[in-house]
Every structure is written in structure tokens, then in C-alpha cells.
């Protein structure tokens, strides 16, 4: 069957699981930053983890696991886009994706996003309960815009605009917290 069967070395297995546990969240954020759609990102992560495991024998312990993993995930993103058979005109180009990936790498190197995430948590608490509910519906329950519109008795257009405003306000709030605005 498979020619790339993983080595059943238990130490190696544990090493993989540890590294994955440590970095999986960051890797998921990296993928989501590039593909934008969280459901696509989940699919890419799922596939990507399997590929990582299959190719783990090529990884040299002690070297940079996140960098190695991001490379695999980047190709999984491209593969996922091709599989999705949506017109290329519905995506940002692959060339631009490479530029974004580089920018994302440097953001991780600078650890720019750790502080950002803390600030974001702060800013979310400042939202009105009503607005927080909209975000929860979108992110926790993964409701579509249509689903939110049904649930909150707003039109889809109104939900779309409200979500846009919420995201922008959060962004500006975070920038203010970080003192960069």
C-alpha cells in the first residue's frame, strides 16, 4: 500500500505529537490568515497534519518545526484551492499568497502577534452584549451570514455591514491598545 509509511519508532511518534501540540494553534492561525475562510482552513489543517506525519521522517529534530510545517501547509493551501475548482478569479493569486506568507513568517519571527492577541481579547470584552453575540454566532457557532440574519431578524445586508463594522472596530481598538494607531 503506502510507500511512505511512518516509522513506528515510539520516540519519534512522541516527538511529533509534542511538536504538533506546541505549534498547532500558530499553524492554524497562519493557514487561516492566508485562506481567510475558516472552514477551508480547517480542511487544510486536517490534510496538512496527515502529510506532516507522513513526512515527519524527513524532519530533522532540533531544527525549526514551525518553518518546516508552514512549508507543507503552504502547499496544502495551494492544493486545496486547486481541488476546490473554484475559478482562480475568486481567489487572491498564488504569487500574492507567497508574499503574504513571507509577511506572515516575519510577523512570527518578530512575535508581533502575541501582544495583538491579548489586546484583541481586551477589545472583545468592550463590545456590547448584542454585538458580542453576533461575533459568537459567526465564530463560535460558525453561523453563516444568512444564519445570523435569521437568528437576529436582520437582513443579510445588515448583518454583512454590521460584521464589517465590528471587525473594523476591533482592528482599530487593537491598534489603539498597541499604541500604533
Amino acid at each position, binding site marked *: 500500500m503506502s510507500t511512505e509509511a511512518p516509522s513506528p519508532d515510539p520516540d519519534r511518534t512522541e516527538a511529533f505529537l509534542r511538536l504538533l501540540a506546541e505549534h498547532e494553534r500558530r499553524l492554524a492561525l497562519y493557514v487561516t490568515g492566508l485562506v481567510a475562510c*475558516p472552514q477551508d482552513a480547517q480542511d487544510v489543517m486536517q490534510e496538512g497534519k496527515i502529510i506532516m506525519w507522513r513526512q515527519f521522517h524527513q524532519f530533522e529534530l532540533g531544527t525549526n518545526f514551525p518553518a518546516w510545517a508552514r512549508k507543507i501547509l503552504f502547499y496544502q493551501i495551494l492544493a486545496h484551492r486547486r481541488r476546490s475548482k473554484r475559478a482562480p478569479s475568486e481567489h487572491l493569486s498564488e504569487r500574492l499568497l507567497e508574499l*503574504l506568507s513571507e509577511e506572515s513568517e516575519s510577523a512570527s519571527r518578530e512575535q508581533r502577534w502575541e501582544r495583538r492577541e491579548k489586546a484583541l481579547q481586551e477589545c472583545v470584552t468592550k463590545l456590547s452584549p448584542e454585538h458580542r453575540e453576533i461575533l459568537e454566532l459567526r465564530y463560535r457557532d460558525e453561523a453563516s451570514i444568512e444564519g445570523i440574519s435569521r437568528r437576529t431578524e436582520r437582513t443579510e445586508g445588515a448583518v454583512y455591514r454590521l460584521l464589517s463594522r465590528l471587525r473594523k472596530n476591533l482592528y482599530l481598538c487593537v491598534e489603539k491598545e498597541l499604541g500604533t494607531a
Partner: protein
Amino acid sequence: MNDSFDTDHLLELAHGYIEGRLTPAELAELETLLTSDTEARRVYLDFLHDHASLHWDHVGTGTNTAVIEAFPPLRARRFPTLWQAFAAAALVALLALVATRPGPRETTFATMKKTEAAQWESGTLPTAEGARLGAGVVELVRGLATISFDSGAEVVLEAPARLSLVDGMNCVLERGTAVAEVGESATGFTIRTPSARVIDYGTRFAVNVDATNGATQTQVFDGLVEVEEPESKKRIALREGQQALVTGSSLGGISEGVEEGTWSNPETPARPREPGIRSITTADPGGGDTYVWGGKPTTHTSETLLLLKNGLGPDAPHRKTYLRFPLDSIAAGKIVSARLDLRLTPTGWGLASHLGDSRFKVYGILDESLDGWEPASLAWDQAPANDPASGNSVRNDLVRELGSFTVPRGIQTGSFGIDGDALRDFLNADGNRRATLLIVRETPETRGGGLVHAFASSRHPTLAPPTLELKVSE
């Protein structure tokens, strides 16, 4: 903040991209902005990072967990759960690997049960009847193939089609048509397509993937099926007699009625003519060809094809074909032998699986005063020797049966027709040198929405028109 671009506008575009609702012009604008400006990329990625952390870390701490979608996602969603599940599964699998030598694994999960007039393109799986199948790809260019999954699902593939087998409960239809019959044991059997996931709950249904744009059409004959648009994870439930279309990332509405779905429509090349024989076609001066239809009105009409169908029930859109051959150039009684030749070509309407081998009867119209029909305006009610009230019958007092031919199940191209003394005698006896032939499909479909057969007409751009090939004595 910055001078080179409008942050607010960039974030608006980024929001639209996240939601998949940018127009092509807006997407192009976003692409240009991000490609040309490092700072714009930075702002965009920060914004997307906020979005990503909101998704993966969720918002605040859990308060209410109302399920607001009609169909909650199947997959485990929460990050820790996903991770734990994966880790646990991986550990179990790996420990198993360590503990026992990997023995021979059961890698097949389906059987090539039956093939009919099948011709295959290079795939990765065996195509012989009875062959056991594992994960891989089959590509059918002609005919029908029935694949039986051990899980209890059965899929009939209609050419041209490409199907990728994943496991006992999953396959991917990359293009073409598949009709699935799913037993109770295989509830949840899923056919993925480039644009949708079709999940079955014990039923019979058909899925078609348009090779040009990946659009997915699903039609349910019995039971219940869910169609999911993978982008939005939006699902709709389809019940018996309903169908839905998924194009790009939009899930269309449900429409009622089992009808002939519009499936694929490839062309077939013309058959070479035989030398040494007089050919008369319906395209010759004085000739003509057309089809008439009765029953339910249909938008499935064609200028270039002669359609034939024997539908289920009197209301189904039955279709019959009329041909007129001018015999002016041939003296009465001089025909030694005669053959009628027709080029069968796919219509793309209806399912070949809903029809067995199909027998077609050719009649000659006896009353010569009926030979003057107009191809462009011939109607069901006025068609010569047609019995308009009763679906597919003809007025036996006005016709003589000249012969019949059979198109095997699954075949939609090729050359068909009749020859023999009855045809020769009918043509020799013709007084006004205009011979009208009526063609009827005798075989009714076994279920609604069955295949519409068609022969090339004299207006077909590539295929030869209906032709009489006559051997004439000196």
C-alpha cells in the same frame, strides 16, 4: 496611519474576501493593492490574524451555545477537541503499529459489478466485471458501469464520467453522471463533487457534474438526500422528486418534479459513407425531418436533433420523429435493396440508467395525402398517423411497420437503422415520390426522468442527416 492607501477601504475589502462576497472588480482591486504595497499586506494580515484568532480561540468565554443552523456541522470544530481527537487516534494507531507487525490490510471495499457497452479511459483501478476495487480512479468514456460498495451502496456511472473511489462510504464524482442506490446499511454514503457534497440517507438519487464549470446537479427519486455547499457548509434537504443545482459556491433552490435533467452532451463524429450506393437524405430538396412532442410542456427542445422518448405515463413528454425522403430521382419499382441510416447522438437529457435496451420501430405512412407536412410547424395534434391522446401509440390503420432496431442500454452514439424487404417494398410502391417515415421508441422508461434519445437531423452541424441508402437496378 498611512498615506499610500485608505485603511478603512482595505479592511472593507478584506471583510468581503473573508465572507467570499467580493465582486471580481473588488477582488482585483484587493489583489493590486496588496501586491503593490508592503504596508497594505501588513495591515491586511493583522486584520486576518484577528479574524483567525477569533475563529480558533472563539469569542469570550462560552455563554449560550445555541445551535442556530438547521444542520450543525458534522466535524468536530473546537480546536482542543480536534487536537485531542487527532492525538488520541494517532496514538492508538501508532501503538497498534508498534505492538503488532503490520499484516496484509483489507484495501478493497467495492466490486465492479456490471459493465454495459463500457469503454474505459486510463484510470488506476481494474475495470473487468467482478474485479475488486480499492481507492483509485475510473474513467468511463462510453457505456454504463455499476460499482457495488461493500457498505451497501451501489453507483451506476454513465459515460462520460470520472469517479474517484475513496472508501466504502465516500467517492468523488469529478465529472459526469452517477446514479446511486443506497441501502440502509450505507446511510451517510457521500458523493463529493468539485462544488458540493451529496449525502445520502437511504435512497436513490442522481448526481451530475458539469465538466466545464463543476456545477453539481442532484435529483432524488426516492428517500432523502442532503446537498451541502462546502464553502458555506450550507445544506439543503432534498426529498423524492426534488432537485437542486450547486454552481460555483452558490447553493441553488429546490425545484420540484422528476424530469429529464440536463446532463452532459458530447458530440460524436460522422460515420463514413459507403461507396456505390445512391444516398437520399432528408436534407435533399423536398425532404424534411422533425419531431413532435405531447404531454407535459418541456423546454428540452432542439433545432438540430430529432428527439425520441417514451415517457412514463400519459403526461410525460413523449417524442416521435418524422422523416420525409424525396424519391423523384428514382423510378418506382427500381429499388433492389434499401437501408435507413440514423446517427444516434446524446441529448444530455435524462438518465440512461432509467431505461433498458431500447427498441425503436419505424413505420411508413400509407396515406400519401399526409406527405405534405411542414418540418418547422408540425404539431403533435396534426402529425400524420399520430394518436395524440395516447402517449406513444400510432394510428395502425394509417401506417405499415417497416422494421425495428434496438439501441442497447448505455449506448448514446453510433449508427442505427433498418433494412429489409418491408422498407424496400414501401419505397418502391410510393406513388407521389415522397416517403414519410415515422419513428417511435417502443421501450418506455422504467422510471421518470429517463433518457431522451436523439438522431441527428438535416440541420445538425457535424453529423450526417437521416439517410436512405438505396441500391437501384438499371
